[in-house]
């Protein structure tokens, strides 16, 4: 079981520019991210029935960090 933050819902676009997250082209302020690497990921649209998840620990290179689009049926619960 992995703990990740949902940053975008189906139909929204997601993009990383120099480590900054953009959803639908808007910069998202993420005060919970303390260490940020210079991730660059071209814009993509989240597929129907899916969400886009990313962990808060972004200090590692993008290739080593597991994040991305995942089917909603993988979600087992939220953090209280």
């Amino acid at each position: 079981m992995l703990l990740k933050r949902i940053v975008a819902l189906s139909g929204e676009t997601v993009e990383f520019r120099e480590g900054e997250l953009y959803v639908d082209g808007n910069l998202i302020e993420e005060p919970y991210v303390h260490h940020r690497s210079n991730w660059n990921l071209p814009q993509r649209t989240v597929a129907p029935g899916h969400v886009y998840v990313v962990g808060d620990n972004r200090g590692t290179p993008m290739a080593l960090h597991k994040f991305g689009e995942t089917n909603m049926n993988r979600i087992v619960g939220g953090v209280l």
Partner: protein
Amino acid sequence: MRNKILLIAILFLVGGAIFFLPSDEKKIRASLASLAEYCSTDKEEPVFDTLQKAASAAKLCSDPCTVKFETFKIDREFSQKELTDRFLMMKKRLPNTSFSFHDTVIDIVDGNRAEVITTLRINGKIVDQQFTDAYELDITVDKKDGDWRFSSFTVVEFMKK
């Protein structure tokens, strides 16, 4: 009266033996715990211990054992010798790293095969930087000659960047 006491004592003994005998699920959980322990490497682990742990980790697996990890394009059988070498290489590359299994669900399919879904958590330090990694694993465990051995490991990849 004496016979009754004797009967109750026997029932207690049999019941206790059944209760305390490790079930298949307990044996598999114990093997997972051993695998995690053997894969973990202390900061100043003596070379002999590293060699011994790598061999012990491989011995928990069947010969051959299938490993599937799509990201690294791995999908093949590994002999016990190859597994020992891989475990050794991993331990040398990841000193001061601990492995642990969480959220483990074990489904005994029949008396001789079990399917395990678990989360592997890796905590360590590389060049003074702390890291944590987690993988969802599907593991097949087969019982042979009374011993449960890991016969396949599949890293479940469910996130697409």
